[in-house]
């Protein structure tokens, strides 16, 4: 009577209902004593350090961008690998050209210093100026 997806649907409803009922029951019977300690963010029992909304270093983004490109380009190698045998040597050459172009791109990143994890180029003064500019806009 139930199709495969029907079973999953029933399962989803039951799973949701179980959580809902458990929370509702706990709400009815638990004691209510709110305190500051309970509102803190859980950091393995320690008092939390600083805000959870830290700003990541901007170089994470650059590395992420480079990773994103090279990671996704590799997808094109899967269909190539499937038909590799039918094309033999020329298939190898075609794949080699593709990889060579990718390698050129990576060599470029390397040479231009985008892969280096050195100190930030933006200096303190400029950063302060930017922050002031932002504060002015906020106020």
């Amino acid at each position, binding site marked *: 009577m139930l199709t495969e997806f029907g079973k999953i649907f029933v399962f989803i409803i039951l799973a949701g209902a179980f959580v809902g009922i458990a929370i509702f029951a706990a709400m009815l019977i638990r004691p209510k004593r709110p305190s500051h300690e309970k509102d803190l963010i859980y950091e393995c029992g320690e008092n939390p350090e600083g805000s959870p909304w830290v700003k990541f270093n901007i170089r994470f983004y650059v590395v992420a961008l480079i990773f994103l490109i090279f990671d996704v380009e590799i997808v094109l190698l899967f269909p190539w690998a499937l038909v590799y045998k039918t*094309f033999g040597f*020329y298939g190898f050459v075609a794949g080699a050209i593709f990889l060579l*172009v990718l390698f*050129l791109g990576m060599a*470029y990143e390397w*040479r231009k210093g985008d892969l280096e994890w050195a100190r930030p180029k933006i200096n303190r003064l400029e950063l302060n100026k930017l922050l002031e500019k932002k504060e002015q806009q906020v106020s």
Partner: protein
Amino acid sequence: MLENLFKDLSLIYPEIIVSVTLLLVVLFDLIYDKNKTIIPYLGLIGLFAALFYSLGSVDIETHAFIIGDTGNKFGLLSLDPFGNYFRIIILITSILIIFFTKSSSEIHSISERSGEFYTLLLGMVLGMMFMVSASDLIMIYISVEILSLSSYVLTGFTKLRDRDSEASLKYLIYGSASSGIMLFGMSLIYGLIGSTNIYEINEVLQTTSINSIIYSFALILIFAGIGFKISAAPFHFWTPDVYEGAPISITAFLSVASKAAGFALLIRFVKVTFLADNIEGNWILLQGFDWQNFLIIISVLTMTLGNFAALWQDNLKRMLAYSSIAHAGYMLLGIAVLTDQGLLAVMIYFLVYLLMNIGAFYIVMIIANNIGSENINDYNKLGSAAPFLGVSLTIFLISLTGLPPTAGFISKLYIFIALLDVKMIAVAVIAVLNSVVSLYYYIRVLKHMFINETDKTVPEIKVSLNDVVFILILLVPTLILGVYFSPIVDFAQAFLSILVN
């Protein structure tokens, strides 16, 4: 199968030459980072080689890169004289633009990054060259993206002023949204018809008539992507901002080459996909979607909006941006008539538009190099300070208006002839009225240059010999073709044929 591949690769030598040049530029930039002055010449060598090869392969008319079973007849690219003509226009433009960048002070200020600049420029050229011969929806999408991705970066490349990055962001947002919408339209067409090849779509449409809302909807979505590239009316919002913010050389490149590629794509898409019959140069299109009225509405809207918005512009780059929108409107009329005569008119128009638009932008660039402004109020009395520039700009602007004895007149004349041939008198009258409106804002520049008094001291304008030669190369044909125009008509006529079913 492999023999076919080698044969197909031999058909696209110009594209291969440009790709190899691109890689060489990257390699050169990596290895010799002391001396960057050679890089533009490296690009020039590649572009000239591609141009000569394109000029030599006039007669080729074939399908290339056939995918799938051996029974398939149609490939990813279709190479024909029409595509070759636009390829030649794009290559000539890019060669001129490389000379253009050599005398632009904006590009000099980033000379340590010129390797990346010319790599991206060649990337744009490559995308456009594939655009003009793409005959599969997915190939169209990929080539449009190759062009777009390079041009997003180039728009904000100099980072000299805040407006550069802003232009880049606006171009990116409008561009990526419209290409995404185009891709969605393509996926609907793939579902409705079962193929993405425009020749196969044509075969299917000829046997079964598809007449549903989804079909029209999908075609409008696809037009949104192409209309963005040619800056047609409802999709033109990016144009003024991007043209104003980008470096002038890139603005000139976008306004001519990118537009040419978009028009080639639109013409091939409309003619190949929807052609039912071709009677003595009149294209009879299939039922289901009324391309003629659709294109007429778009083009009238485009030229009217472009011309009227240009009236209030004080920044010359911005004014030329609106004027380029208006020109896109005139050229769309050449497609809307759906005849070979109209196609010829568009092809002539682009050759002329190339000369006069690059010329006008070049003079704006020289003046901006010297006085650091593109505002029309700073142009007061510049005509007497630099008479050569003043007179040349006058001629280019008269040509853009479409008055005799300049080449601009001939190109407009051919559009009007094509319109009158199919008895579209009302549309022709609107186009003429638009030209009259455009006269006002072009003349306004001349008024500032020659008549208006100024209380400031008129700055000195340095014009080098290179500048004079470059301007003369564009100026002389603009004047000569206005009187003796049979060579360009013959030249365009030789490239008229599009490969159809």
